[in-house]
């Protein structure tokens, strides 16, 4: 497997090297990349973007503003089925095509020391080689194109187009080990001269809601767990996690990132023992689920993330579960 991973990583290096004839002047490219996560975070703007994944293409309207120190974003699916997402700080609201709503409210506190309130931003690990590919234009804005070439086969590669003046990410591609684009996001219009109010980010009224409420204490003896990955790809670290109720059951999550790629492992009490593995690949997003028998019952363990299948397989194989010993 390692040979195959090394070979595929080597292939991706070759492909991207062909596309990127010159190395970055490290300082400028790194500085631009470091600005990316917070670029335009304090400003109000409205834009339109296209998102491509395989044969699916979506056009989305995006609104962004900062109120009371909290990031507010709204993404509206413009073609085909209607779907929306509203983000207000740590709260997330999804409006689904058939009218339902999923709400993710922030908890008052979290059991996890790396939870939302204490989140950290990881620097880009040395497992990526940063390559500057020069100037380009996206949505009429001057950008710098950067390639992030993985040094191993445990992660995908990225191409990023960052605005010259602000560092805002205007175009992004995720590439597999053969250099094939798994996903592309690209702004086609961006308006920074806008005035937005909190009403632009208001919750929809009257929709049937599914609330994934946070569990504030280990109250589900034998059904609530702590997740611990014994093996992680180099450069990945745990950054977040929580336990939320879904259909009355506690579902524990722990998230890991290397600064670009992210995957999350979930554990939920299983109603039935399943055999084998269930999977779904959605562009770069992989979901793998397996049943883990733990007396007296068992758990469904699911990994969701933008990582290659081999990474998911090895992380799951090295996963530890610890049953909570709290009181009912």
């Amino acid at each position, binding site marked *: 497997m390692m040979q195959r991973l090394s070979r595929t990583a080597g292939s991706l290096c070759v492909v991207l090297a062909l596309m990127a004839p010159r*190395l970055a002047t490290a300082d400028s490219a790194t500085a631009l990349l470091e600005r990316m996560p917070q670029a335009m975070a304090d400003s109000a703007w409205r834009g339109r973007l296209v998102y491509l994944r395989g044969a699916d293409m979506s056009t989305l309207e995006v609104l962004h503003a900062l109120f009371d120190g909290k990031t507010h974003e709204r*993404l509206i*699916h413009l073609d085909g089925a209607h779907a929306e997402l509203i983000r207000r700080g740590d709260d997330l609201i999804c409006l689904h095509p058939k009218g339902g709503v999923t709400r993710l409210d922030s908890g008052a506190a979290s059991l996890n020391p790396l939870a939302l309130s204490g989140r950290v931003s990881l620097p880009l690990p040395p497992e990526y080689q940063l390559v500057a590919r020069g100037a380009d234009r996206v949505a009429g804005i001057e950008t710098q194109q950067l390639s992030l070439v993985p040094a191993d086969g445990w992660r995908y590669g990225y191409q990023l187009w960052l605005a010259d003046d602000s560092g805002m990410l205007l175009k992004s591609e995720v590439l597999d080990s053969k250099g094939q684009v798994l996903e592309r996001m690209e702004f086609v219009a961006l308006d920074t001269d806008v005035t937005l109010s909190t009403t632009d980010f208001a919750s929809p009224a009257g929709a049937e809601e599914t609330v994934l409420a946070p569990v504030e204490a280990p109250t589900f003896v034998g059904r609530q767990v702590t997740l611990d990955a014994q093996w992680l*790809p*180099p450069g990945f670290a745990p950054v977040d996690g929580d336990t939320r109720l879904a259909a009355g059951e506690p579902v524990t999550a722990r998230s890991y990132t290397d600064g670009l790629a992210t995957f999350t492992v979930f554990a939920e009490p299983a109603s039935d023992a399943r055999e084998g593995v269930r999977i779904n690949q959605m562009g770069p997003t992989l*979901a793998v689920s397996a049943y*883990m028998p733990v007396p007296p019952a068992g758990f469904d363990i699911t990994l969701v993330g933008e990582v290659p299948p081999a990474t998911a397989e090895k992380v799951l*194989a090295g996963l530890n579960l610890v*049953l909570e010993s709290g009181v009912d």
Partner: protein
Amino acid sequence: MSADRNRETLSALLDGEASELEARRLLRDMNEEDGQQLSRWQLASDVLQGHAVSAVPADFAASLCGQLDAQESVRPAWVARLGQVAVAASVAAATVFGWQYMDTSPASTPMVATGEAPFARALAEAELVSRDFQRSPVVQARPATLAVSELQPLLVRHSQFAAEHGGQSLVPLARLVSLDANRDAEE
């Protein structure tokens, strides 16, 4: 083209020093030996840089993939590849979880659901598992598909984590909305 010259170019490629023309030529002329050489050097580079190298036996999935290849399949190529990986994972999972079940004491609190040792043991015995699988005439069931509707709550939570920590805040959210809107097509 001499073998020494090819090796020089391979080395330059790994060091990021090969010109575009050289890289193109090498890609065109690369044979299996060159590919293995590149793989070995990449592995050596990983080790020197302290990157973890896999503990999974090299042929862990290979024999399973061979079994799958032997099956008649009407699936597209990418689905077939996924199936190979998933079946490999399913064998690991089944073994691991079996070990877990036997090794776990229900009386212990807090109870650690096996953890490293049984998983590591399962991985160490993966070769044996593969051989058993090869010998067995039983055709492994194809992995089932996780429905997007079932995944939706997990995708929402993962997308929030990815938006907060992944450095590309908008992309995971756009991905989530697009997936939701195209859910019918996905299923």
